[in-house]
C-alpha cells in the first residue's frame, strides 16, 4: 500500500530531481489527529459586498478559535465584531511576503451578476499564492436554483469553474471547495465549514456541495464527540475502508454496530471489539437480511442513528465477457441490498430522528470505467438512490447522502498492475492516492448530527481526480 514514488520525491535529492524534470511532487497530506484544533494557522476571511453569509462564517471561525485576518472592509469587519472575533487586519498591498494563510474563506453570496465576479478575483488574486501547505480555499455562495434573477444564478454558477480551477492551481496538498448555502440555511454551515477547514478533508478537493435549510439544529453539540449516544451501523466493517469508517465513528463517540459476512466474522469481531462496539454477522443479500437488521437495531438499541452502506465488491470484466453471476453479484451487493435495507428501516421507523444514511458510491459510478459496467452501474445507481430518496428521508427528519471515493490506497488497489495504479494515483490535483480514513472522515461529516442541511448530495473523495470531473 506504500506510495514509493511519494516517499522518493520527498527525499532531499528527490525534491531536486522532481523539480528539475517537472515530475508531480505530492506532499504528505496533513491528516487529523485527535485533540488537534480544527485549523492550525491563520485564516483570511473576506466577503463580496452585500453577502448574507459573513455573519454565519464569522460565528464558526469564532467557535473554533481561529486566528482570523480580514481586510478593512465593512462586511467582514462587522461580522467579525458581532461574532466576538478579534480579527487582525490584512492589506495585500502592504503585507510582507511571509504573511501566509492556512485557509482563505470567501463569502461570494453577494455576487449578483457576472460583473461582480471581479470581487472573487480581487480577493483571491493577491492571496492565492499565500496559501500554506495543506491549506484550504473555501468559497461560499448561493445555489443557482435559489437565485433571485437569471444573472445572479449565472454568476453563482460561474463560481464552480472558478473554484475547481483554483483546486487545480493550488499546490502542496491544498484543496478548494465551493459550498452553496441555500436561503435560510445560514445556520446549517458549521459542520461543513469545520470539515472543509480541518485536515479531516485532506483528500477532498474541487467539490461543490449544497446546504439546504434544515430544522435539525444541533445546539450544544460536542464537536469532539458529535456521535456521543448514537448508534452507527456500518456494513462491510471488518476491513479496509469499512474498518476506517467504524474507527472514525467510534472516535466521534458512536456505538458502532459492525456488520459483515460470516466468512469475515473473526476479523469483524477483532475490529469492532477494539472499538467497544457490537457485531452483526449476516449476508446483506440474503432475503431476510433487511428484516434481521431492523430487528437487531430495534431490539438492542431502539433504533439506529447512522447507517453506512459501505459493503461492496468488484467483479471486473468487459461487458461481452462478463458472466451473469458477476453482474448479479455486484448489483445485488452494491445497490439492491442498500435499497432493500433502507426501505425496511424506514418502513419500520428504525431510523431515528436526525438519522443519517451515508452510501458509498464510486468515481466509476460518475465517470464509468472499462471493465466495470456492473460496478459503475451499481455505483451510479447509488447516486440515483440518494437523490431519489432524499425527500422521503427528509420527511423522517433524517438525511441520505453519498461519498464517491476515487483512488484509495487499499489491498484492492495494491493488487493492481503498476501502470494502472500509478495513473490512478497521480491523475488528480493532489498527485497521490487517498487513504481509507479520508473516506471515513467524509462519511463522519455527513453522519454528524449537525449536518442536517445536507441531503441528497454526493461528495467525491478523489483529490479532485481528472476522471469524471
Amino acid at each position, binding site marked *: 500500500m506504500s506510495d514509493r514514488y511519494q516517499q522518493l520525491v520527498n527525499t532531499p535529492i528527490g525534491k531536486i530531481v522532481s523539480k528539475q524534470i517537472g515530475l508531480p511532487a505530492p506532499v504528505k497530506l496533513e491528516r487529523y489527529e485527535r485533540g488537534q484544533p480544527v485549523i492550525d494557522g491563520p485564516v483570511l476571511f473576506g466577503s463580496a459586498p452585500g453577502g448574507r453569509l459573513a455573519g454565519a462564517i464569522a460565528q464558526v471561525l469564532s467557535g473554533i478559535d481561529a486566528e482570523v485576518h480580514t481586510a478593512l472592509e465593512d462586511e467582514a469587519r462587522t461580522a467579525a*465584531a*458581532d461574532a466576538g472575533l478579534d*480579527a487582525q*487586519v490584512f*492589506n495585500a498591498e502592504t503585507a510582507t511576503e511571509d504573511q501566509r494563510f492556512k485557509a482563505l474563506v470567501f463569502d461570494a453570496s453577494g455576487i449578483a451578476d457576472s460583473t461582480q465576479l471581479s470581487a472573487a478575483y480581487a480577493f483571491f488574486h493577491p492571496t492565492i499564492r499565500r496559501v500554506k501547505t495543506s491549506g484550504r480555499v473555501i468559497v461560499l455562495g448561493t445555489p443557482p436554483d435559489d437565485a433571485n434573477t437569471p444573472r445572479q444564478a449565472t454568476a453563482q454558477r460561474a463560481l464552480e469553474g472558478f473554484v475547481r480551477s483554483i483546486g487545480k492551481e493550488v499546490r502542496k496538498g491544498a484543496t478548494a471547495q465551493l459550498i452553496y448555502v441555500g436561503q435560510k440555511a445560514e445556520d446549517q454551515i458549521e459542520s461543513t465549514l469545520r470539515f472543509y477547514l480541518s485536515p479531516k478533508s485532506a483528500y477532498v478537493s474541487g467539490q461543490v456541495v449544497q446546504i439546504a435549510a434544515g430544522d435539525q439544529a444541533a445546539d450544544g453539540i460536542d464537536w469532539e464527540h458529535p456521535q456521543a449516544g448514537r448508534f452507527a451501523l456500518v456494513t462491510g466493517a471488518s476491513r479496509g475502508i469499512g474498518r476506517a469508517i467504524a474507527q472514525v465513528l467510534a472516535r466521534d463517540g458512536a456505538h458502532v454496530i459492525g456488520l459483515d459476512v460470516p466468512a469475515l466474522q473473526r476479523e469483524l469481531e477483532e475490529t469492532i471489539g477494539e472499538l467497544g462496539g457490537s457485531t452483526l454477522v449476516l449476508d446483506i443479500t440474503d432475503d431476510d437480511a433487511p428484516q434481521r437488521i431492523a430487528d437487531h437495531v430495534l431490539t438492542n438499541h431502539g433504533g439506529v442513528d447512522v447507517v453506512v452502506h459501505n459493503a461492496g465488491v468488484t467483479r471486473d470484466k468487459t461487458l461481452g465477457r462478463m458472466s451473469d453471476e458477476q453482474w448479479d453479484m455486484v448489483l445485488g451487493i452494491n445497490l439492491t441490498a442498500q435499497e432493500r435495507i433502507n426501505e425496511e428501516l424506514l418502513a419500520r421507523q428504525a431510523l431515528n430522528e436526525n438519522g443519517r444514511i451515508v452510501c458509498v458510491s464510486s468515481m466509476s459510478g460518475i465517470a464509468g470505467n472499462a471493465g466495470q459496467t456492473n460496478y459503475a452501474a451499481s455505483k451510479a445507481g447509488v447516486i440515483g438512490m440518494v437523490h431519489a430518496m432524499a425527500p422521503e428521508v427528509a420527511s423522517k427528519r433524517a438525511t441520505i447522502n453519498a461519498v464517491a471515493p476515487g483512488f484509495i490506497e487499499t489491498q484492492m488497489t495494491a493488487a493492481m498492475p503498476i501502470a494502472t495504479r500509478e495513473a490512478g494515483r497521480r491523475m488528480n490535483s493532489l498527485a497521490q492516492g487517498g487513504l481509507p480514513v479520508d473516506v471515513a472522515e467524509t462519511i463522519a461529516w455527513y453522519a454528524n448530527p449537525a449536518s442536517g442541511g445536507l441531503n441528497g448530495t454526493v461528495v467525491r473523495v478523489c483529490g479532485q481526480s481528472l476522471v469524471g470531473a
Partner: protein
Amino acid sequence: MNANVRRAAVLGGIRIPFARQNGPYARASNQDMMTATLEALISKFELANEALGEVAAGGVLKHSRDFNLTRECVLGTRLDPHTPAYDIQQACGTGLEATILVASKIALGQVDSAVAGGFDTTSDAPIAVNEDLRQVLLELNRSKSNAARLKALTKLRPQQIVPQIPRNAEPRTGLSMGEHAAIMAKEWGVTREEQDELTVASHRNLAAAYDTGFLDDLVTPFLGLERDQNLRPDTSVEKLAKLKPVFGGEEGTMTAGNSTPLSDGASAVLLASEDWAAEHNLPVQAYIVDAQTAAVDHVHAREGLLMAPTYAVPKLLGRNNLSLQDFDFYEIHEAFAAQVLCTFKAWEDPVYCKEKLGLDAPLGSVDRDKLNTHGGSLAAGHPFGATGGRIVAGLAKMLAEKGSGSRGLISICAAGGLGVTAIMEAA
C-alpha cells in the same frame, strides 16, 4: 473647596518657529527658547509686570540642572516675579497636559490666570557621562581618605569617556518610536501612498496658514527664523515617493518625509477665567470643555505604542454626549502619518471598537477636510513639549474665527503608550 466650576478660557497663544535639529537653534537652550516665547506672549497680551496665577511648562529632553526651568524662565521675563511656576513632563503630551492642568485649576477657582507652555531642544541635548564613569566618580566623591580616592581612580578606563546620549527609544521594548509606528502601520495595512498624501496635506495646509496670514499673530520670529524650517510648501506625493524607508525594514512604508523630524522650539498659551479676561479687556477665543488621558499596554499585550488616543477619545465623547463627527476641526498630532491613519482605521473598525474599546458600534470616520486644517506636526516639526501649545493656540484661533458653537478635538499620542486628548469649543 470651591464647588462652583468655572469655564476655563483660552485667550490665545504664541510660539517661535520650529527648527530642525542642529539648525538655527543649535546653540539655543530650552531656557532661551521658552523665555523668548513667554516674552512674545507678554507683548501680545500686554502682561508686563502682571502677576499671573501660575506658569506651567515642560519638555522631554532636559538637563539635570534645569530642575526648575519654567520658574527660571519666568524670572527672566517681564512678568511679575511673584508669578509661581513649575515644570511638568508627559512625553509628547506635555504641552497639552500643561494646558489641561492650568485649565482645571482655573475651573476650580484655584487660579484666575495661567500660562501653559512647552519646549524642547534636540540640538542642545543633555549628554550624561558614561554609567561606569558615573559610578567611579560617585565612589570618588564618597571616599573619605586619599588612599580610598586613589583606589577609586584606579577604576578609570579609557572606554568610560564615551558619553550617554539620549535615545529616542522605548525603555521597555528597546524599539524606537518609529519602529513602533512601523509595527502599527503593518498591523493596520497602512500604505505608503496614504501616508505621503497625508504628509502633503500637512505641508500645504501649513503653507496656506502662513500665506493667508493666519499664523501672523501665532508665530514670532526667533534667531532669524520666521517660518517653520521643516515646511516644504512645494512637496508632492511624487517627491515623497522617492524617499527610502527609514522604519520597518526594506519593505517599510515610513520615510523621513512622512515621519516628524527631530526639532527645536517652544510655545505658550494664555488661559484665564472669564472674569479675569473681561477685567483685562482680553477677548476669549475658546474654552477647554473636557480632557482625557489614556494608556495602552504596549509591553505585555503588545498594543500599538501610539494607539492610546483611540481609547481616550471615546471616553471623552461619551462623557460629553458627542459623536466623533460632531467637530468642526480635528487636531490630531502627526507624530507619524501612519499614527494618524492607524487611529482613523481603528475608529472605523467594528472589530477594534468592540474588542478593544468595548463599543457597540465603530466611532466612524473623520472628515479629512477638517483634519489639521492649518498644518500639522509633519510640516511644522515636533519639538516634543511644544506641540501641545502649538495646537491649542491654533485651534483656539480657528474656533474664534469659525464662531460660536464650533468645536474642535485634540488628540496627541505620546511615548510610553500614552495619549492626551481634549475638546475645545468656541467662545
